[in-house]
Structure formats: C-alpha cells, structure tokens
C-alpha cells in the first residue's frame, strides 16, 4: 500500500514571498505523483504531475515541484505568491500500473497568503 505525508498542515506566507510545501510518499511499487489545489468551495484542480524524466516539473500558476527519489519527496514551490494562491494543496500518488486510476492523498496543506 502507498501513503502520502504532507509535513505542514498550515503555511502562512506574505504576498510576494516564496513558499514551499513539503510532501513525502511511501510505496513499494512505482507511482505517479501529483499536486492538486482546492480553492474555497471548489473542487480539485491539477497543478502539476510527475510521470518520468526530468525531476523538476513545472505546472500552472507559476508552481513547480521537484521529485527526489532517494528522499521519496515531491515538494511544491512557488517563488512569489499572490493573494489568489490562498487555498488548500494536496499531494497525491497513483500506481503506475493503474494510470488514470484512484489516488491516495496526503492530509493537505492550507496556504494563507497575507498582504
């Protein structure tokens, strides 16, 4: 079975400051890695995904994430946040052998961007 741990439940950050959201995973088989964002009262939107190849993945809205196989991590970063980035962020994995299939989510990180 796989599991995902998001190390920070809440991250307050000032506008235009950088932010990093930490994600570690555990799995005995190969997985795909995802970051989703959930804005208040909305569903989930995919920010980015790691499938294979380059370990640095760029997503929408200026976000990027780096896959580190040795540390089993997939941390999300943004160099300069905006007020509109206030949301909850979820790291998730799916089994490679079951692409497009069910996801295992981390506990979520709530980002609050302050002016």
């Amino acid at each position, binding site marked *: 079975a796989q599991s995902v741990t998001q190390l920070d439940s809440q991250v307050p950050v000032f506008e235009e400051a950088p932010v990093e959201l930490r994600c570690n995973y555990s799995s005995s088989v190969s997985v*795909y890695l*995802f970051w*989703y964002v959930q804005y208040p*009262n*909305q*569903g*989930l*939107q*995919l920010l980015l*995904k790691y*499938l294979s190849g380059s370990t640095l993945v760029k997503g929408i809205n200026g976000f990027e994430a780096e896959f580190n196989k040795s540390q089993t991590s997939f941390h999300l970063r943004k160099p300069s946040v905006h007020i509109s980035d206030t949301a909850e962020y*979820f790291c998730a994995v*799916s089994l490679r052998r*079951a*692409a*497009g*299939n*069910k*996801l*295992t*989510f*981390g*506990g*979520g990180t709530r980002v609050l961007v302050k002016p």
Partner: protein
Amino acid sequence: SAVISQKPSRDICQRGTSLTIQCQVDSQVTMMFWYRQQPGQSLTLIATANQGSEATYESGFVIDKFPISRPNLTFSTLTVSNMSPEDSSIYLCSVGQPMNTEAFFGQGTRLTVV
C-alpha cells in the same frame, strides 16, 4: 480533459434520511470514483464505480451505507443512507481513463446532516 457535473452542489438533510448524489460526465470514461472529504481533512476514496457491475468498496466503506450505481459510461450516483451528523462531508466524483495519468474532479457536494 473531462467536464464533470455534480448535483446537488450542497444540501442540508435530517438524520436518518438518505441523499443521492449524481455525477454526470461530458464524455465516456472508464474509471469513476467517489471520494469523501470530511471537515478539515483530506480526501478518502469510498469506492470505484464499475459500469455494469457492483462497485468496489475501500476498507471501512460498505454498500449498505453507500450504494453506488453506474448505469453507463457517463453517469454514476452515490447514495448516503441513514445519515448521521458524522456523514457531514464533501463528496466528490472523480473520473479517469486507463492510459491517462490524470484524474478529473467534480465540484463536490457539500452535505450537512442535522
């Protein structure tokens, strides 16, 4: 990509009653899933909705409490039966294709049981 519509978007229900949530997709999809997001928590998979056969439930979820239908490749329903306040959550429908690495989500149904 897929556009997913969930109905209702929110509801307030009396304990002991049941609510059926609908998930409609704008294209045929192979995989359909139902997740629960309890207040302040992450998403937990309830079950995989299988077209033409019984749903596959995750540990801790049972058919009597969460019956699911999947009559075709674009539609599914989840019923939350005999509700209690502990069932107050957001319920989300998700879809995917076997060779596609991305899962798409509906807007969710916010359920409050009083």
